[in-house]
C-alpha cells in the first residue's frame, strides 16, 4: 500500500510539473536575451552569443570542452594531496583517476573508488560536482540540438554550444540544485566541511563519523542524472538519503528533467502532442519496468525472500522493498546510477530489470538529454519501419527519413551493443572476469552489468567484481568514453541532416506520430529491436539464475 502511494504520488508530481517546468526549460533554451552573468561568461570565453554553429562545429565544441574537462579532472585528482581540504588523503592513482575523470565527464559517475576514503572535499566540490553540472548540461544541450534539427527548415546552424551550456547550467541546473540542497539539509543530509568525527560507540569501539558538503552535491547528483555518491554507499547512506521522504525527493529529482524534456520537444516542433507521445512511450516503459522490479522483489523466488515475504537483503529498512526497487528502476531507467540498495543482492530477475532498463538504451526517460535523444532516434527508426505501411516514404515531423538519417540512427544503435557485448565477451575471453566473487550465472551477471552500466553511462554497479584493477579501469573508462561521445556525435550529425531538410506538409496521408498506436509501436520497437539483442546474454546470466 505504501509502495503504491509512493509511486502514485511520484507520478502525480511529475505530471504536475510537466507543463510548467517543460515550458520553463523551453524558454531557457530558446531565449535570446541573456543576463549580465551570462554575458560575462560569454565575454570571458570569447563567444558571440548570436553566432550559430553548424552541427560539425557544435560537435567539435562539445568534444573540445569534454576533452579539457577530462584532462583537468584527471590532473586535479592526481594532485589532490597538495591542495586544500584533502583531509590528508593521498593523490588518486593513475588508472582510477582516468576512470573517474572519464566517468564524471561522461555523466556516468561510475565509481571505482570509495568516496569517503579517496576524495577530499575540494575535489568533490570543485572537481566532481562541477562535472555533475556541466556533463548534465552537455546532455541537455545535445538533445536540444536534435529538437532544433526537427524544428528547423533548410537551416545550417543549430545554436551555440557555450551559450546553451551556460544558460542550461545557470537557469535550470543551478537554481534547482540550490533549492533542493536546502530541502535535503532540512531532511537531514549533512552539509559541512568537516573531515569527520571520531566517536566512541556504546560497545566501546571507535567509529569514524564522516562529514562533508553532501547536500549540495546530492541535489545535482540526482537532478543531473549523475549518480556519483559522496559516500561509497551512495543514497543508501543515511547522511545522503536519511529518510523515506528524502528518498521520494531523490527519485523525483532523477525523473524531473528527463520526463519534462518531451515538453520542450513538443514546444520546439510546435506540436505539444508530439511531446506527450514521447513522454507516453517513456512512461509506459518506465511503469512496466517499475512494476516488474517491485513485483520480482516482493514475490521473488528463493528461500529467504519467501520466508520473510520479500527480498530484504541489501535493502535499507527505512526505505523498504517497494521504495528501494522503485529507486533501482528509476536510477537505471535514467542514466543516474545512484543506488539506495544493493542491486547485486536483488532476486535474480529483480536484478535483471536494472540491466534491462539500461539495455533499452536508457530511454525511459533516460539521462538528462541523452534519454530524449535516444528515444527520438528510436521513434525515427519506428517511423522508418512502420511509416512505410501507410504507403509513403517515411517522414517524422515532416522530415523525410532517408539513407543518411538511417545510417546515423543505425550506427547509434550499433554502438551500445558493441560496447556492452564486446566488453563482456572481452572480459571473459581475457580471463578478467575471474575477479568475480560469484561464479556461474550470477558472476556472469556482474560482469554483464558492469559493461552495461559503463556503455550506457549509467554508473550503478552490481558490484561483486574488483573493478579498480588497471584492466577494468581502462576497459570501463573506454566503454564510458565511447558510449557517451560516439552516440552524441551521431545525434548531432543527425540533427544537422534533419535541419537541412525541407519539411513536408502534414496531410491525411501522413503517419500520425502522436496517436496511441504510434506510442505503442515505439515501445514495441524499443523492446523487440533493442532489448532482444541482449537476450542470449541475459539467458546465461539472470535468466539462468532466476528460472532455476
Amino acid at each position, binding site marked *: 500500500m505504501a509502495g503504491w502511494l509512493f509511486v502514485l504520488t511520484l507520478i502525480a508530481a511529475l505530471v504536475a510539473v510537466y507543463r510548467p517546468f517543460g515550458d520553463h526549460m523551453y524558454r531557457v533554451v530558446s531565449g535570446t536575451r541573456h543576463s549580465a552573468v551570462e554575458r560575462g561568461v560569454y565575454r570571458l570565453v570569447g563567444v558571440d552569443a548570436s553566432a550559430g554553429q553548424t552541427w560539425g562545429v557544435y560537435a567539435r565544441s562539445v568534444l573540445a570542452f569534454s576533452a579539457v574537462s577530462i584532462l583537468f579532472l584527471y590532473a586535479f585528482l592526481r594532485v589532490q594531496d597538495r591542495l586544500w581540504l584533502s583531509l590528508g588523503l593521498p593523490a588518486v592513482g593513475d588508472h582510477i583517476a582516468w576512470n573517474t575523470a572519464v566517468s564524471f565527464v561522461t555523466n556516468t559517475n561510475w565509481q571505482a573508488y570509495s568516496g569517503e576514503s579517496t576524495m577530499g572535499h575540494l575535489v568533490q566540490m570543485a572537481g566532481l560536482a562541477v562535472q555533475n553540472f556541466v556533463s548534465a548540461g552537455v546532455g541537455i544541450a545535445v538533445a536540444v540540438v536534435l529538437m532544433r534539427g526537427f524544428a528547423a527548415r533548410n537551416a545550417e546552424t543549430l545554436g551555440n554550444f557555450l551559450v546553451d551550456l551556460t544558460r542550461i547550467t545557470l537557469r535550470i541546473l543551478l537554481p534547482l540544485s540550490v533549492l533542493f540542497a536546502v530541502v535535503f539539509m532540512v531532511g537531514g543530509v549533512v552539509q559541512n566541511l568537516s573531515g569527520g568525527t571520531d566517536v566512541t560507540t556504546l560497545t566501546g569501539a571507535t567509529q569514524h563519523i564522516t562529514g562533508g558538503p553532501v547536500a549540495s552535491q546530492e541535489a545535482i547528483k540526482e537532478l543531473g542524472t549523475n549518480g556519483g555518491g559522496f559516500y561509497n554507499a551512495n543514497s543508501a547512506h543515511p547522511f545522503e538519503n536519511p529518510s523515506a521522504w528524502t528518498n521520494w525527493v531523490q527519485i523525483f529529482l532523477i525523473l524531473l528533467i528527463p520526463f519534462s524534456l518531451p515538453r520542450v520537444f513538443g514546444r520546439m516542433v510546435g506540436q505539444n502532442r508530439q511531446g506527450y507521445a514521447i513522454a507516453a512511450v517513456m512512461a509506459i516503459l518506465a511503469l512496466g519496468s517499475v512494476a516488474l522490479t517491485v513485483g520480482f522483489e516482493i514475490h521473488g523466488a528463493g528461500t529467504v525472500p519467501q520466508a520473510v515475504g520479500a527480498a530484504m537483503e541489501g535493502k535499507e529498512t527505512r526505505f523498504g522493498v517497494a521504495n528501494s526497487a522503485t529507486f533501482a528502476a528509476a536510477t537505471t531507467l535514467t542514466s543516474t546510477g545512484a543506488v539506495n540498495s544493493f542491486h547485486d543482492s536483488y532476486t535474480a530477475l529483480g536484478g535483471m530489470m536494472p540491466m534491462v532498463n539500461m539495455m533499452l538504451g536508457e530511454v525511459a526517460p533516460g539521462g538528462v538529454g541523452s534519454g530524449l535523444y535516444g528515444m527520438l532516434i528510436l521513434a525515427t527508426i519506428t517511423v522508418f519501419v512502420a511509416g512505410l505501411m501507410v504507403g509513403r516514404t517515411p517522414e517524422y515531423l515532416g522530415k523525410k527519413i532517408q539513407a543518411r538519417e538511417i545510417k546515423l540512427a*543505425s550506427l547509434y544503435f550499433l554502438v551500445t551493443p558493441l560496447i556492452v557485448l564486446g566488453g563482456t565477451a572481452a572480459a571473459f575471453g581475457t580471463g578478467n572476469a575471474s575477479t568475480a566473487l560469484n561464479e556461474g550465472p550470477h558472476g556472469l551477471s556482474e560482469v554483464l552489468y558492469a559493461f552495461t552500466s559503463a556503455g550506457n553511462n549509467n554508473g550503478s554497479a552490481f558490484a561483486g567484481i574488483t573493478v579498480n584493477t588497471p584492466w577494468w579501469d581502462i576497459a570501463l573508462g573506454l566503454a564510458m568514453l565511447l558510449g557517451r561521445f560516439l552516440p552524441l556525435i551521431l545525434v548531432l550529425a543527425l540533427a544537422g541532416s534533419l535541419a537541412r531538410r525541407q519539411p513536408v506538409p502534414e496531410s491525411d496521408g501522413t503517419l500520425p506520430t502522436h496517436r496511441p498506436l504510434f506510442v505503442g509501436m515505439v515501445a514495441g520497437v524499443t523492446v523487440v529491436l533493442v532489448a532482444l539483442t541482449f537476450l542470449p546474454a541475459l539467458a546465461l546470466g539472470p535468466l539462468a539464475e532466476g528460472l532455476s
Partner: protein
Amino acid sequence: MTTTLNDLIEVDPAPEPPAKPVKAGLLDPRQLLRSVPDALRKLDPRVMWRNPVMFIVEVGAVFTTVLSMAQPSLFAWLITIWLWLTVVFANLAEAVAEGRGKAQAATLRSARQDTVAHLTDGRDIAAPQLQQGDLVIVEAGQVIPGDGDVVEGIASVDESAITGESAPVIRESGGDRSAVTGGTRVLSDRIVVRITQRPGESFVDRMIALVEGANRQKTPNEIALNILLAALTIIFLLAVVTLQPLAIFSKAYQAAAPDTAALDGHGVTGIVLVSLLVCLIPTTIGALLSAIGIAGMDRLVQRNVLAMSGRAVEAAGDVNTLLLDKTGTITLGNRQAASFVPLQGVDPEVLAEAARLSSLADETPEGRSIVALAGGGDVPAPASAQWVPFSAQTRMSGVDLGGRRIRKGAASAVLKWAGVRDAEVDEIVDRISSGGGTPLVVAENDRVLGVIHLKDVVKPGMRERFGEMRRMGIRTVMITGDNPRTAAAIAAEAGVDDFLAEATPEDKIAYIRTEQQGGRLVAMTGDGTNDAPALAQADVGVAMNTGTSAAKEAGNMVDLDSDPTKLIEIVEIGKQLLITRGALTTFSIANDIAKYFAIIPAMFAAVYPGLDTLNIMRLHSPGSAILSAVVFNAIVIVFLIPLALRGVRYRPSSASRLLSRNLLIYGLGGVVAPFLGIKLIDLLIQLIPGI
C-alpha cells in the same frame, strides 16, 4: 488527341470502382520451377554480395557445410541443407520477379525486327545505323525504323507491338501527334520521319531493359532500408559472436552437464551459432526486398505504364498533389447537349426537331449527344437532305432540306448567317457561357429558333474518387484552358480541391514550383511538347504515348494507353509498393521473438535446466527446435513470394487506418505466425529418428 481520348472513354466508360484493389499478377507455380536455374546462378558470391543479409546467410551456409563434412551428423547436414535452401529461396523470389519481366521483353524483342531505313536522300541503310536527325521515308506496310517525329505527311500507324492495342492511331506532322515509335507499322499513306533516338537507345530498347530489370537501380528508400537491415545484421552478428565466451564460461561452470548437439566444452557449436544468427537477422525482408521492387515496376508494366526508374514509382506513393487535365480525365472528352433553350414564341418541339435534323449527319460526340437529347436518331433523315459539314471558316454545320435550311453553330456565325440581331439570343448565350457551358445557336432560314446548351459532363464516379484521394491526403488540381468561371463551376461539380484556369504551360510550371517549395510532391500527365518542361519539373511526370517525343523524354513514366486517369492508379501502385516493403519488414522483425523462444532454451537448457521454462512451444528436443526455427525461416520466404509479387492488399484510406490494419496483420501476425509455424514443423521433424 480528342479522338484518342474519346476512344478510350468508349472502351472504359466508367472509372473502375474505387475500392478495387490493385490487380495482382498471378504467380504461376511453373514459373517457380522455370526460375530455379536462375536462382542457382545467383548463388555466385559476386552477385550475392549485393544483398548483404543473404550474403551473410550464404557465408554461414558455406561454413556449416565445411563443419558438416568435418563432423558429419544428420542434424548438421539437415541444418546445412536448409541454410542453402534459405539462400536459394531468396534468389528464387528475385528470379521469379525478373522472369515475369523477361517474358514481356521477349514479346518486345520480336517487335524489334531488322528493318531497312529509306533515307530521303535515296540511300537505304540498316535501322541500327540510323543517326539522330536522319530523315527517313516510311510508306504503307513498312515498319518505322526508329523513334522520331513525323515532319511530313499523315498516316495511320499500328502500334500494337508496344501498346497491345490493335486499333490504329493517326500520326501527322506538327502538333502533338507527331511522335512515332520504332517497331510500329505504317498502315496507310506515307510519312517522313526525323529520327530523334540515339542508336541502340530506342524506346523499345529502353522498354526491354526496364522490364528485364537489367539496369535496375536501388531506390532511395530501398537504400535506406538496406542500411537498416545491414545494421541489424551486424548487431545480431555481434550478439551471436560475443555469446561464445559467455557460453564457454557457463559450460565450464556446469561442467557436469552433458554435451549436446548445441553446446559442448568448446562453447556453442558452429552449426548452432550460424543457425541462431540466420534466424535472427532479417532474412525474410532481405530475401524479398528486391523482388518487391521489381514486382512494383512489373505491376505498372501490366497496366501499360513504363516507369523509367524505380525512384519514380516510389515518388508516386509520396505524391501530395495531382495535376489532372480536365478534358478526358475529369470530364468526358467532349461536351454533351444538356438542354434546348427556345426563344420566346418558339415551340420547344420545333427547336428540338431542328437541332436533331441539323445534327443527324454530325458524327462528333457533341452531335450525337444533341440527337440523343432530341429524342434519338431512330427517325431517319429525309433522302433529299443536303448535309453542310462543319468548317473552321463557317464555324457551323447543318442541313438543307429543299427550302428548309437549318444551321447550328457558334452564336456570332449563325446570327450573321441568318442576318438577324436579337438581344434575347445574346442574353441566353451569355447566361450559358457564364455557367461554364457552351451555347450553340440554331437557326432555320432567317429565323433564330433557340440555343443548345452544351456542357462538360463530369465522368461518373470521379467525385467519389477525389474524395478518396483527399482521405489519402492527396490534393487534386484540375488544369483547364477554360475561363475561371467555367473552371470553377466544373471544379465544384467534380469535387477537386483546386483548379488552374486558362492554364498556359508556364502557369503549370509555376504551380508545380510553388507546390514543391512547400515541400509537396507533384504528379501530372502531359502529352504536348509544351508540356515537356512541366513534366520534367514534376516529381512524377506521366507522358502519354500518343504525345510528342519531347514529352516522353521529359516525363519519368510513359503511359502506353495514353489514359490520363491512370495517374490515380499509378499513385496507388506506388503506395502499395511501399506498404508491401514496410509490412514485410515489420513481419520479418516481429518473427524474431518466437525464434528466440525456440533457440535459446535449446542451446542452454542442458546447462541451466531452468531455461527450459522459456521453451513455451514445448518443442520436442534441442535439435528439433533449432532445425524447426531454421526450416520455418526458409519456408516463410517461399510462402511470402506471392505476396511480395502481388503486393499487399491496398485500399485507399487515411494513414491511421492503413497503419492499424497493416500493423495488426503484419506486426501481430509476425509475432504469432512463427510460434504456430515452428511448432507445426517441430511436430513433423520429431518424427525423424535421431533429431
